[in-house]
Structure formats: structure tokens, C-alpha cells
């Protein structure tokens, strides 16, 4: 069997780490004070890592500290002598040390972040340290040096985004380009803050010595805090939308868990069709609330199954739902999708097609009993003329096949 990409990447990272460790052990650690200070900074940064929130860079301080150590050429005016191997060793040791409490708390350790960290830091250090120590960069003094660091870090950030997208692609099988787009989208935000802090820290240490580390990490910590609050309020918002969606279940209009299942499956199908993260969020909200129009009905639809209703009735419910969603102050695109979920598929936006197909699949497979899912898929394939978009049905089939494989 062909080795998967993430295995190859992990192997590369392991080889680099082992080589660096061996070299450092053989040569000994230069400038222990600086190594210790940066090690402590990276460890602290790792300790503040929070996984699970939908933030690209979960430990920005550790990333910035690692990059600035790789770019360190002077400490308070005196040139440094540590090489690339020592940089990788210190970063790796500090990262592992900082992740001990997380592992102890029972979070399963993942190999991707440390592998990426080792590779990017190793790349920066190998590009910078030998050239600097040999004096090739002496012509690049003053402001040019700052710009050089910035350019090097930006290039690395781009490579890291490609690497991250490739890893996610190889792990999950989701299409590569949308993943890359999502990774690149975070570069102007927290990614830029990490790059700028990495460069500024290296320059700051060069000017004032190790004092710069605590002082210069404050703005980044602030950024991390703001991002975390943003993520927290987004999570809360999701919960509220999901609760609003459950109103129809509690009122007895739809079966329990229907909205949640349609949302989860729609998200998977949307990802397979290459939607980006913001589009997926809109799709998820629309899928959660797709049945909300039924609240305005006097009598419940039997079992909440809207897919078997006559089309004009389906559209009426969709319009009612759109009106309710519009009032909630959610992104207006969500209301648009809810309104258009019963339109013929050539006129629908992609998200509305997905909601329609997944909703129909969910209802049909539930009715069908044990063999339901297969029959439902078959019916959708045959019924593509009736308003189910063929490309979405195929994407659904792929997602379902992947789920059964994984199970």
C-alpha cells in the first residue's frame, strides 16, 4: 500500500528532529541563557493552547517564540552562535514539555501540530542561521534586515498553510483547494500577528536582550485572548441556533434530532463539494433551521416529512421559514437558503440544493427501516429530475461511502 502523505510528513519531521537532537547532544548547547528563556516562552505558549475551538493557530505564542528563536542573530548586540540544530532541539523539547499537561488531562495527542512546528521552524532556521553566521547577510543591516525577516516568515507561513492543507487532505479526504483556501484565509488574521511578533521579538532581543521576551509577548497574548472570546461567543451562537432549531421538534412537528442530523450531513456534503469555512457555517445554520417554517402551520405535517408534500406546499413552508429566520438577525444568506430550499434545483444556490437533498435523504432513509439508507439514495438518484441536483446526490453518496468505510 502506498504510504499516506501524513505518514511521510511525520517521518520527515522525526528524521529532522532526531538529526538535530544528535547534533546538539554531540556539540553541546550554546548560550544556555537564551535557550532556556526561549524554551520557557515556548512552553508557556504551549500551556495556553486550547484545542477544540475552531481557531487555526491554537498556540500563537509558542509559534511566535519558536520562529523568533530561529531568526535570532544577536542578543543585546552580541552575535549568537547557536545553529539550526539547536533551534529545532529547543523548540521540540519545549513543545513536548508544554503539551504534557494536555496529554495528562486526557486530550489525545495529535502528531500534526508538532510535526508542522518542527518542519517550519527547521526550514526557517536552516535558511537563516548558516547564512547569518557566515556573514552573508551583513549587507542587509538596519531596516533591510527587518524586512528580510518579515519576507522569510511570510514565505514560511505560506508553505505551512500548504502543508497543513495537504495534511488535512490526506487525513480526511476532503478536497485540497478549499482546505488551502481556509488555511490561507487565516493568514491575514492571527497568522499575521504570529509572523509580526516572531520578527519583532527576534529584533527586540537583538536590541535589548532577553527582556524583550515577556514585554513583546503581551500584544500577542491579547490577540489570543480576543480570538478566544470570539470563538467562545461563536460557539454559544451555534448552540442558540441549534436550540431554536429544536423548537420544531419539541412542538412535535419534526422527529427528534432531525435538524441536527441534517446539519451534520449537509456540512459533510458541503465540504465534499468544496465550500469554504464561512460558507459551511451559513449552510449549517440554514440546515439547522430548514424546518422552522412548520412552526407557523396550524396542523403538523405527518412525521414532519416535507419531502413528500406537493411542491407548492413545500415552497409555502420554505417561505414561512425564511420569514422567521430573517427576524432572528442571523446572516441574511441563511434566510435566503431556507426560502429557496424547495425551488427547482437549477434556480437554487448550491447550499439550498444541499439542504434539499440531505433533508430528503434523511426523511426517506428514516422511513425505510434497516435497508432505508440505500433505498433512499437510490430514490434520490432516480429522482434527480424532480428537483434533486445530481452533483449533490453524488457528493452525498461519496460522503456516505466514506462514513461507512470509516465506521
Amino acid at each position, binding site marked *: 500500500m502506498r504510504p499516506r502523505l501524513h505518514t511521510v510528513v511525520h517521518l520527515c519531521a522525526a528524521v529532522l528532529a532526531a538529526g538535530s537532537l544528535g547534533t546538539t547532544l554531540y556539540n553541546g548547547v550554546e548560550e544556555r541563557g537564551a535557550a532556556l528563556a526561549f524554551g520557557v516562552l515556548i512552553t508557556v505558549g504551549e500551556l495556553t493552547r486550547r484545542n477544540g475551538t475552531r481557531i487555526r493557530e491554537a498556540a500563537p505564542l509558542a509559534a511566535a517564540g519558536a520562529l523568533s528563536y530561529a531568526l535570532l542573530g544577536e542578543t543585546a548586540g552580541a552575535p549568537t552562535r547557536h545553529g539550526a540544530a539547536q533551534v529545532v532541539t529547543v523548540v521540540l523539547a519545549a513543545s513536548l514539555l508544554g503539551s504534557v499537561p494536555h496529554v495528562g488531562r486526557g486530550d489525545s495527542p495529535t502528531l500534526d501540530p508538532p510535526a508542522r512546528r518542527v518542519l517550519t521552524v527547521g526550514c526557517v532556521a536552516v535558511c537563516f542561521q548558516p547564512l547569518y553566521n557566515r556573514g552573508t547577510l551583513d549587507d542587509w543591516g538596519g531596516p533591510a534586515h527587518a524586512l528580510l525577516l518579515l519576507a522569510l516568515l511570510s514565505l514560511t507561513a505560506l508553505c505551512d498553510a500548504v502543508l497543513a492543507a495537504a495534511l488535512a487532505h490526506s487525513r480526511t479526504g476532503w478536497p485540497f483547494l478549499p482546505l488551502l483556501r481556509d488555511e490561507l484565509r487565516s493568514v491575514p488574521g492571527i497568522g499575521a500577528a504570529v509572523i509580526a511578533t516572531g520578527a519583532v521579538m527576534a529584533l527586540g532581543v537583538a536590541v535589548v536582550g532577553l527582556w524583550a521576551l515577556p*514585554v513583546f509577548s503581551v500584544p500577542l497574548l491579547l490577540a489570543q485572548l480576543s480570538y478566544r472570546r470570539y470563538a467562545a461567543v461563536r460557539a454559544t451562537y451555534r448552540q442558540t441556533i441549534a436550540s431554536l432549531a429544536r423548537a420544531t421538534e419539541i412542538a412535535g412537528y419534526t422527529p427528534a434530532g432531525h435538524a441536527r442530523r441534517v446539519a451534520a450531513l449537509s456540512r459533510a456534503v458541503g465540504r465534499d463539494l468544496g465550500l469554504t469555512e464561512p460558507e459551511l457555517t451559513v449552510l449549517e445554520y440554514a440546515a439547522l433551521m430548514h424546518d422552522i417554517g412548520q412552526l407557523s402551520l396550524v396542523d403538523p405535517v405527518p412525521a414532519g416529512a416535507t419531502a413528500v408534500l406537493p411542491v407548492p406546499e413545500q415552497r409555502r413552508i420554505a417561505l414561512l421559514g425564511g420569514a422567521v429566520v430573517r427576524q432572528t438577525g442571523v446572516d441574511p444568506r441563511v434566510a435566503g437558503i431556507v426560502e429557496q430550499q424547495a425551488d427547482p434545483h437549477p434556480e437554487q444556490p448550491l447550499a439550498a440544493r444541499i439542504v434539499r437533498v440531505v433533508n430528503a435523504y434523511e426523511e426517506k432513509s428514516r422511513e425505510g427501516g434497516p435497508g432505508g439508507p440505500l433505498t433512499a439514495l437510490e430514490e434520490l438518484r432516480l429522482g434527480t429530475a424532480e428537483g434533486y441536483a445530481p452533483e449533490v446526490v453524488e457528493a452525498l453518496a461519496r460522503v456516505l461511502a466514506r462514513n461507512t468505510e470509516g465506521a
Partner: protein
Amino acid sequence: MEVLPARARAYVACVTAAALICLLPPPGAPTPWRAVALLAAVYAGCERLARSRLVAAPHPGGTFHPVLLAAAFLLPPSAAALVALPGALLLSVERRPYLTRRLWRGGQLVLAVWAASRVHLAAGGRDAVTDCDVPGALAAAGAAVAVFCLVLTLLDGGILALTAGVPPRGGRAGAPDAWWRLFLRSLVPLTVHGLAGLMMALLWRSPYGPVAALLVLLPMGVSWWAFAQYHRERAAHQATIRALVQAVDIKDGYTRGHSERVGRASMMIARELGMDDERVEVLRFAGILHDVGKLGVPTRLLTKNGPLTPEERRVIELHPEYGHEMVRGISFLGEARAAVLHHHERLDGSGYPYGLAGGQIPESARVVAVADAFDAMTSTRSYSRARPVPVALEELRRCAGTHFDPRMVGALVRAIGRAGWHPAVTADDVRSTAAPEPAAPVTDRPGARR
């Protein structure tokens, strides 16, 4: 409509005049024009960007203090003050009177930057920055930031006192305490801005020059952007919760506005009992969402005229459980979820759904029960006319101990006795109380509408 009192105009004029004096360069000292121009352009540009639609911030202004503080740490006082001027004068203001507001913003910043720069100079900060002596530079910068914050707070408090006619007052605390809290609230962010300003100053004086210094602004800008997003998302979230409640109001025509009012009354009780701000906010949500389960009750029953059959009554009495089922997944609501489930319990155990008695009923539910009953009595329902507030309070006091917790009833009576009951108040006014802005005293002047 925003007409400033004459004394406020005079105050603004005085501040402007003082600022002009500060801007005069001392004779013999050359002004470093290039640095001033660069920093002023950066400041104005950053503030402009913060107001653009790209970021769409809810609370514009006062964001790029690091630039001003860096100027205060680098330049002579009059030159540093000049840096704030273009940004403060040129950027748009949202409300009338435009010219006065611009002058005010400019004068305030000029005075604050000048004072900070003066203090920094006196504390020997310039030499510390040039020699890269970090402890010395930190101490001088700390003193300068404290003065910066003090000047801003005093000037702000002054204009508030003159326009609103009252000194800033926070809740029941005394005036000096409120000033002190106003100072502390702005001191924390300004300390971070001061650190960033110091970093800029250190790098500016280094061989790497202004290019490296400007890089410091990037993390600050990013964190500020995330903060603006946080506020936007939070506002959207509040709108969604309100929509959830409106859905109930639409179903149950007679209770229009009931949820918001119960939220307000719950909040008054919680404040009166001395709960902390976070808990008060949770109880407000508890009041707002207490009837959300009515979404699950058929509309026919909710709007039925005339007596309900026992069967129908049982269906309606399911609404606390429906409501709890809906909100139990929303983790930030905390104890508000218990309030939704138990707001129809009675102290003697005769309530529903579980017939809990006394201390078994969660405190939040006891608060909401009193607020709910009070609003039900003072608003018109299908089965009864609205009763006057004193009659309703008397009725609550009569039922205290059997139906309601006397502590909560007492708190409501005291709170209404002091601040009155303004049922017309809209939810948008209430929202700002979660994080009291300096302008808050203007809106809840005591006794205004008793």
C-alpha cells in the same frame, strides 16, 4: 437635539485652549518634523482603517493609543501632542454637534499625550529608551501611562458631569468610588497599549528603525479586529435570542413584551440582592426565556378565550419542561436553565412541574417566579385587566411565604420603590447595562419618571 449646555461649551473651549498652549514648541528646541509626520500619518491611518466597513467596529475610537504613547516616549512633549492632532480632528464623528466633538476629541488627546510625555521625560525615560535599559524604561512608561489614563478619566468625567448634570455614578456606590472604577477600567487596556508603545519606542531608536517599530502594531490591530468581531457576533447572538422570544410573543398575542419585562424585573431583583454582574445578566436571560417552551404548546390553547379544560391545562403546564428541553444545550445560560424549568414551582410545593418546595427550588427560579407573577398582574391579559403597581406588590407580599420567596418579593418591592417600574422600556436600553458605558448615568437618572 443634542444641545450642549453653555457650561459644557465653556469647558470644551477651556480644554481646547489648554491644548493649544501645550502644542506650542518651547523656544530653542527643534521639532523632529519627519518623525511627527510619520507617526501622525500612522495614527490617522489606523483610526481611519478601524472605522472602515472592513472592520465595522461597534466601539470606534481610542484603539491606537500605542502610536500616541510611542510618540510620547520618543518626542518632545509638544511634538508628541501634535501627533494626535490630525487623526483626532479629521476623522468623522457620528453625532452632532460635529465641530465641538472634534475639538473635544483633539483637545483631550493632546492634553493627555502632552502630560504623559512630560512625565516620561521627568522620569528619565528618554535616556532609558536610548540606552535600552528595560527596567528603567518600564518604570518611566508605567508612570506616563498612569498619567495618560488619569488625564483622560478626569477630562471624560468632567464633560459627563457637565452634560448630564450628575457626576458619574455606578449603581449604589458613591461618586469617588465610581471615578476610581472609571480610572481602573481604562487603566488595564492602556497598560497593554503602553507596553506596545514602549516596544515601538525601543525599536524606533534601534538600528532597525521605524519599519520594525510599525510591525508592533500588527498584533495589536489583529487583536482589536478579533475584539470587534466578538462584539458583532455577540450582538447578533442577542438578536437571535430576542427572536426566539418574539416567536413566543407571536404565538401568544396577549403576552406581547411580557418576556422582556420579566427579564427586566428579574434583573432588578438580582441587582437588589447584590448579585455580581455576570449573574444578573444570566438572570435577565432567565426572565427573557422563561416562557420559551410555549413554542411547543399548540397556538389554539394559548389563544383560547374562556376556561380551559383540565386536559388543556395539563398541556399548557408542560411548557416549563418544553422550554428546558430547548435551552438545555445553551451552556452560557447556566442556572437560567433551571429557572426556565422551575419558574412555576411554589414555595409550599403546590407548583409544577415537579412540586418542589422551599429551598429545593433553585434561587434563579424563585427570582423569575416573582418577576413573572408581577408582570402578569400589571399587564392586561385575556382573563384580567392590568392592576396598578402598588396593588400588584401588595398581592405579591400577601402570597410571600406560600407561593413566593419573601426575600425576592422584598427585593422587588425595594427596587421598584427606588427606581420605579417603566414597562415601556425596550430591550435595547437594557442591553447596555451588561457593561456600563461611561454614558450610562445619563439614562438612569434616579427619580426621573417615578
